[in-house]
């Protein structure tokens, strides 16, 4: 309890010190999200890579650098179990839709995409791209929703997941690791790929897929691409985060650039009074409309939600939310619970979860009142991570 109070005070003071006189008026309008819960996922040096929700939010999958995927409850933080089997880095995880609600998929540098039953934590299916391949990303979709596509080393592979047969291999479009593949929502046959070679390719996946005829357009971002995401009312926009921490926004249909933030870290840093933004974790888009936020972080573990203005003059605005005092190292994943359908009383007020290289999962409370900043949830309890022996987390109810 004392520690929690200390932490709160600490951050409060920090804000006071850094509060600028009048240079940045919007600075005082950001919300500081309070830490509700903090879970140590392992007692070694493993990182949390990614957090993904089950479609009904009754569970969340967490991939760790130990090649395992752990499962927790997003509402209580309770540990549920672990899926072990991958022999190399787990690069992507996602739950299936309502049709197979208990299934979690994962792809790995061991060259496989595996399916796990999250009730028994056992592997139920495995598709392999071969022992010398690595799979960095995967996506389900296609015209009859029967395709599974995978981003591999230079190649994009396609299987019919119903019979696990490989139906196509695109190997001419990229010359380096394909870090992202996404079937586009509402544009069934379209697949977008992004690679370390700096290219974003848009493919038509109807019929017999081949490089010569199915590559529709190419966007040259110019540098190694880490993450891309499709957003916008009609899903025709694309945000792109590179490994050199630059951000760009594109209209993939037109193949045009809408905004380019080469010095994105500096723009974000200039818009708040805290430490230098060292990297970006992800981009989040509004459920409705064209809003876009980029989540920037410091090496010490503080996060900011920065609005991205890309129409009529590119700009990165002051953060609308700051998540501090939770992590002590680089943050790798942010999962907002705003996407939840039907918020119950349990989940109301929860902003979401974050995970990072400190091996921690942090749950954040959002200030429901749309009023001013810095109103602390004084009922916060920070679960102290104990390095000694205990298997399950001690859950402290609030």
């Amino acid at each position: 309890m004392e520690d929690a109070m200390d932490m709160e005070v600490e951050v409060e003071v920090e804000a006071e010190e850094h509060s600028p006189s009048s240079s940045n008026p919007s600075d005082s309008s950001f919300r500081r999200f309070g830490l509700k819960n903090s879970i140590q996922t392992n007692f070694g040096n493993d990182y949390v890579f990614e957090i993904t929700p089950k479609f009904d939010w009754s569970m969340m999958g967490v991939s760790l650098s130990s090649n395992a995927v752990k499962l927790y409850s997003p509402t209580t933080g309770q540990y549920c179990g672990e899926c072990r089997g991958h022999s190399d880095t787990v690069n992507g995880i996602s739950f299936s839709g309502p049709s197979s609600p208990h299934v979690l998929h994962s792809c790995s540098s061991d060259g496989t995409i595996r399916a796990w039953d999250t009730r028994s934590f056992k592997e139920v299916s495995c598709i392999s791209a071969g022992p010398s391949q690595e799979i960095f990303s995967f996506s389900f979709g296609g015209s009859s929703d029967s395709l599974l596509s995978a981003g591999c080393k230079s190649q994009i592979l396609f299987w019919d997941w119903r019979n696990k047969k490989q139906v196509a291999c695109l190997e001419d479009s990229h010359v380096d690791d394909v870090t992202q593949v996404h079937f586009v929502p509402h544009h069934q046959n379209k697949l977008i790929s992004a690679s370390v070679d700096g290219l974003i390719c848009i493919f038509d996946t109807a019929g017999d897929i081949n490089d010569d005829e199915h590559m529709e357009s190419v966007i040259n971002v110019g540098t190694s691409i880490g993450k891309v995401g499709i957003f916008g009312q009609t899903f025709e926009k694309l945000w792109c985060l590179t490994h050199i921490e630059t951000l760009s926004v594109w209209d993939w249909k037109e193949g045009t650039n809408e905004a380019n933030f080469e010095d994105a870290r500096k723009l974000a840093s200039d818009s708040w009074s805290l430490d230098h933004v060292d990297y970006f974790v992800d981009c989040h888009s509004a459920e409705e409309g064209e809003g876009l936020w980029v989540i920037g972080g410091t090496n010490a573990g503080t996060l900011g939600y920065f609005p991205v203005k890309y129409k009529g003059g590119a700009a990165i605005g002051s953060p609308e939310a700051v998540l501090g005092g939770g992590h002590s190292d680089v943050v790798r994943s942010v999962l907002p619970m705003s996407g939840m359908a039907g918020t119950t009383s349990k989940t109301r007020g929860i902003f979401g979860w974050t995970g990072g290289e400190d091996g921690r999962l942090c749950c954040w409370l959002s200030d429901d009142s749309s009023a001013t900043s810095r109103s602390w949830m004084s009922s916060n309890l920070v679960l102290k991570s104990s390095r000694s022996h205990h298997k399950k987390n001690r859950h402290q109810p609030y």
Partner: protein
Amino acid sequence: MSKLQSDALREAISGIFSDCNEKKRKFTETIELQIGLKNYDPQKDKRFSGSVKLPHIPRPKMKVCMLGDAQHVEEAEKISLAYMDVEALKKLNKNKKLVKKLAKKYHAFLASEAVIKQIPRLLGPGLNKAGKFPTLVTHQESLESKVNETKAMVKFQLKKVLCMGVAIGNLSMEEKQVFQNVQLSVNFLVSLLKKNWQNVKCLHLKSTMGKPYRVF
């Protein structure tokens, strides 16, 4: 030493230049920056990969070709830049061998907005496969500066081991230019590492045929 010492760098560069003068080679040697990392795990930590624009062009002999619309073709002619228009691209008839030949002829390509959209249809994935898909150039920017920008870009990529090299200059440049290239690129690369200088084990500069000089 927690930062790159200017003196050490200047001395190393002088050393490299004087070594080369002692034994002249029949080609212009490239100078490479060799980076050794520590406290970094390629499997866990974020990827260290990308392209950076250097203040001074390290490879002036880089051949660039403009795939242009009428306006860009005209500009290209004026600055003696190799070019091809849409008609010329159509003549390749999406023939894989011809596209491959074109790709081999140049180090990099630029393309106008109107043309870049047609490339998959006109040429297929040939330029992709060669790792030379064109960079877009608009009419709002000077073609010449875009060419220089392209020539000034260098790629860096850390694979499974903790060392990598980046082309940082050549022996026909001025020592001061090499100095600036090294300073800028090192500071940029270090900013991408979470422990900054604590992630850097050593830095060396080396000309193609010369001996390595430690600068950090």
